[in-house]
């Protein structure tokens, strides 16, 4: 059962924060994505969000725009992403959530996309340009293959809408920490924003665990903003780390160190 892998992570996490790591599939090179995912898992990642690169990522800041451009230039497409997932599945049961915009999926064929995703070992989806109003396009397919559809809530989401999103989500709910695009930010700004609406999130999202993301770049940020929630997501800061170190010979070690430091604090 694909979505079971996600549920198990939350069940086993007890009081510990669940850490999801986002990378763009195919960045910095399609051939390293599977190894990179395994390295993230080894360093403490509990869930992998694998970005499906799109030419016009309008909810993303410069970092993910850049990684998407590189991945597309290097020929990353959906079939290649399914192969990466199959490769990862040979040695790992870490939950894998595909995250991306709807157009490449529509172009691929919705039915075929979900069937191939299920077959290759994908557990769920985050589609940032498909709000609950538009999930008719994909919902039945997720149900059919028992995969999770994860929706987002934002600081300006109303209480009643949070309840609706909770009822429509399966696996977890992604809480966007600030109004804005993805990207590493000042920790205080993120914390202040989350403080203002975390109470509403807890009161209205009761069925699913909540992971908070956008702007998190350090262990302190992560602990501060995810306190009282199930965990957090790191994306742009991880990609910045890869960008800074790749293709130095120790790039993967540097990435692992970054991930461990975010999860456990400094390693002195």
């Amino acid at each position, binding site marked *: 059962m694909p979505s079971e892998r996600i549920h198990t992570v939350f069940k086993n996490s007890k009081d510990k924060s669940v850490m999801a790591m986002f990378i763009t599939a195919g960045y910095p090179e399609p051939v390293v994505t599977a190894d990179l995912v395994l390295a993230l898992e080894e360093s403490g990642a509990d869930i992998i969000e694998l970005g499906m690169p799109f*030419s016009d990522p309008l909810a993303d800041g410069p970092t993910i725009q850049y990684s998407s451009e590189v991945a597309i230039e290097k020929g990353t497409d959906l079939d290649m992403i399914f192969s990466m997932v199959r490769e990862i599945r040979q040695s790992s049961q870490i939950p894998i959530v595909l995250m991306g915009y709807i157009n490449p999926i529509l172009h691929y064929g919705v039915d075929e996309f979900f069937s191939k995703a299920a077959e290759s070992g994908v557990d769920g989806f985050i589609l940032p340009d498909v*709000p609950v*109003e*538009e999930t008719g396009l994909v919902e039945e397919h997720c149900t059919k293959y028992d995969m999770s559809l994860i929706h987002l809530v*934002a600081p300006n989401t109303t209480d009643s809408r949070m309840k609706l999103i909770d009822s429509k989500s399966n696996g977890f709910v992604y809480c*966007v920490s600030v109004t804005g695009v993805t990207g590493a930010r000042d920790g205080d700004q993120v914390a202040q924003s989350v403080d203002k609406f975390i109470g509403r999130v807890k009161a209205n999202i009761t069925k699913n665990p909540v992971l908070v993301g956008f702007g998190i770049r350090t262990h302190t940020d992560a602990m501060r903003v995810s306190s009282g929630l199930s965990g957090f997501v790191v994306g742009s800061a991880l990609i910045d780390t890869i960008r800074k170190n790749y293709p130095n010979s120790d790039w993967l070690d540097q990435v692992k160190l970054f991930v461990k430091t975010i999860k456990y604090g400094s390693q002195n």
Partner: protein
Amino acid sequence: MQYSSPTKNGYFGKFGGKFVPEILIPALEELELAYEAILKDSSFQEEFLDLLREYVGRPTPLTLAERLTDHYGKAKIYLKREDLCHTGAHKINNTVGQVLLARRMGKKRIIAETGAGQHGVATATVCAKFGMECVVYMGAEDTERQKLNVDRMRLLGAEVRPVTSGSQTLKDATNEAIRDWVTNVDDTFYIIGSVVGPHPYPMMVRDFHRIIGDETRKQLMEKEGKLPDYVIACVGGGSNAMGIFYPFIDDDTVRLIGVEAAGYGVESGQTAATFAKGKPGVLHGSLSYLLQTTQGQIALAHSVSAGLDYPGVGPEHAHLHDIKRVQYVPVTDEEALRGVKLTSSMEGIIPALETAHAMAFLDTLMPTTSSGEIVVINCSGRGDKDMATISKFI
């Protein structure tokens, strides 16, 4: 059957919708409510019409193109003179409407995207008139190609932000405007420049432009006592076309023709002919026809006309295409440039390169018409802005 679109959820047939990040949903809901309220508010409608009259210069004339008519020797040709609107194109009808709405909603900051710069200028103009902060996103490449319009916007007090991401053209300027909106959603109103974007924009922009078709209908009844047999307009996103087509959709005898930009040719790989070469997909908040790669990435469009250089098209056009109410035809760069020359030399009207696509289609259409029939072309803008491009070909 009476045409009625979109649905409550913003669908024109299977096209349209609201494909946006969650952060924008409250803003769209707020906009929908505000828009519903002004539709019923006669004081808004009066203020809007008053500005169109006293500031924009409406109604625009419906000019009989006598020499063009003689040239083809078939149907009578009329031009709906949107080129005579303040700022030189139809775009200002919509920016007047949206800025009034933004004021009613208490928004202080206006953002817009622009390609050729016409929508940017029209937005900067109304912001100057109402003393509002205005930021216009424009592809870095377009800021070079359309320097005159950049200077106009700056003179009008707007901040022009060149966009260096992606292809540095209109689609990227739109991405960047949406990113700004996502970030500043509380105090910012996004004035979209065409019948594209998430619901309610395609409907709202159409409604602000329908005055073009309403006037045409009335003026032609006065002059000829009948409806036109053909209405022709160029289509990029499709705002001038929706404006003139919309009031005629239920008149089955009126043939509606949208002219899209074929660039170097429909099969050249360098085209903006969305219906000829596109497939349904999602960009900038709605489901419509889109130029795409074989991987479902958005393809780069090409047209000599910066205003038609867009890989998508408004969702209502997609619907009108699928139900076959509007016929969409491609016209190349070269044909459009001939259209500029023909209209300039025979009518003393230098049309915008966008408009010239519609003019150029007369070569194909006119031989199939007969005397006694009437063709109306939406002369959507004037060509001064394009002189740098046009002068290379004369």
